[in-house]
């Protein structure tokens, strides 16, 4: 995955180098600018079993600030924010691989370096007994829950 580009960033930014589980690396640029998910919107995406995005809805596109063709075919961790602990995502993968539903509060990284908090739910798509992919739905979270998650994630 390509490094994030300074030209796309709005405002002052910091850098973080991600080393992903698949052995790849990416330089992420992030700011302190928050965008709130508007009330009533649901962000929906589907990935294949490797976590590669195969479909997104319009709120996903708007909140991520990417174009749809920049998202399809990319790993879902294109949205990963440096403040999110790796432990949260390893728990997610363990749960959904075991065909359980995963819930959690997630801080996502936008293309412009900003962030948005969501309450995310992920489930496995099971067809004829096999996992064929994953569906994720993200919705607006309460500020109190976000504050709790921020404190918790700093300890992980």
């Amino acid at each position, binding site marked *: 995955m390509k490094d994030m580009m300074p030209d796309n960033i709005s405002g002052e930014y910091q850098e973080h180098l991600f080393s992903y589980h698949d052995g790849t690396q990416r330089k992420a640029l992030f700011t302190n600018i928050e965008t709130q998910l508007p009330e009533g919107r649901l962000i929906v995406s589907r990935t294949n079993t490797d976590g590669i995005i195969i479909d997104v809805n319009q709120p996903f596109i708007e909140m991520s600030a990417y174009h749809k063709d920049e998202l399809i075919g990319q790993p879902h961790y294109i949205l990963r924010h440096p403040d999110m602990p790796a432990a949260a995502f390893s728990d997610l993968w363990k749960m959904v691989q075991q065909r359980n539903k995963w819930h959690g509060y997630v801080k996502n990284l936008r293309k412009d370096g900003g962030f948005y908090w969501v309450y995310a*739910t992920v489930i496995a798509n099971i067809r004829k007994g096999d996992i064929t992919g994953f*569906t994720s739905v993200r919705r607006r979270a*309460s*500020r109190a829950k976000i504050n709790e998650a921020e404190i918790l994630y700093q300890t992980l």
Partner: protein
Amino acid sequence: MTHNFTVSPDFNPGHISGWYIFNTWLQRTINEELHLELYNSASEQRKAIADDRVDLIYANPYDATALVRDKGFFPVARADNKTDEAIIAVNHESPILNVEQLTDGTRISSTDDPDVRMMCMIMLEPAGLNKSNTSTTQRDAYILIAKDLLKNDADVGFFLEETYNELSDMTKKQLRPIVHSQIHVIHHLLLVGPKLAHKKDDIQSSLLSMADDSKGVGVLKNLNFERWVAVEQEEAEFMIDLMDTLAE
């Protein structure tokens, strides 16, 4: 043998005659006897489903989940350009302008339509509200929810968007939506049960050509539908997965 057809009880009462006309049109078209049974509530309809007394159903997304996964129903079609969205409304004089101004103890008026309840409870989450810190009065019809708001017997009312939009202008003037869902991918589905599965393809092809036939156009108009579009198994499975992510 007569097969039983039913419609999710959240439809607009103004379309009752439209569903009877549709039933007559469909049984003539597919040459199969169909009996239309309309239930007053989601719980009554769910009992009929549990007792295997339903063979064809225009189901809300929540019930479609159980029908496809647990009862072996097949998706056939959905109405084009219609998605299921929900509205939370208040009395127009209420000081509440948005969801996050709501507080513990909020009084909700709702029908027992499970998909609308689920979507609206999700929209209350940003205020930290859930079943444990709200109270709910259950009503049999959306007009009764409007009345609860007008009499200040409830702080917020849960509506299916289409039904809210079809309230009288006089009623709507006294209400104010504070949030409406924008999910875009949840629909009612027409589903065929196992006992009518031999007619699935006939039903689907009849529905898809309905808008090309003058009689069919009239029937669609009575339902306030433009046309039917086909729903394949994977599209239904995707919607069911989505409903699963939203369910508690």
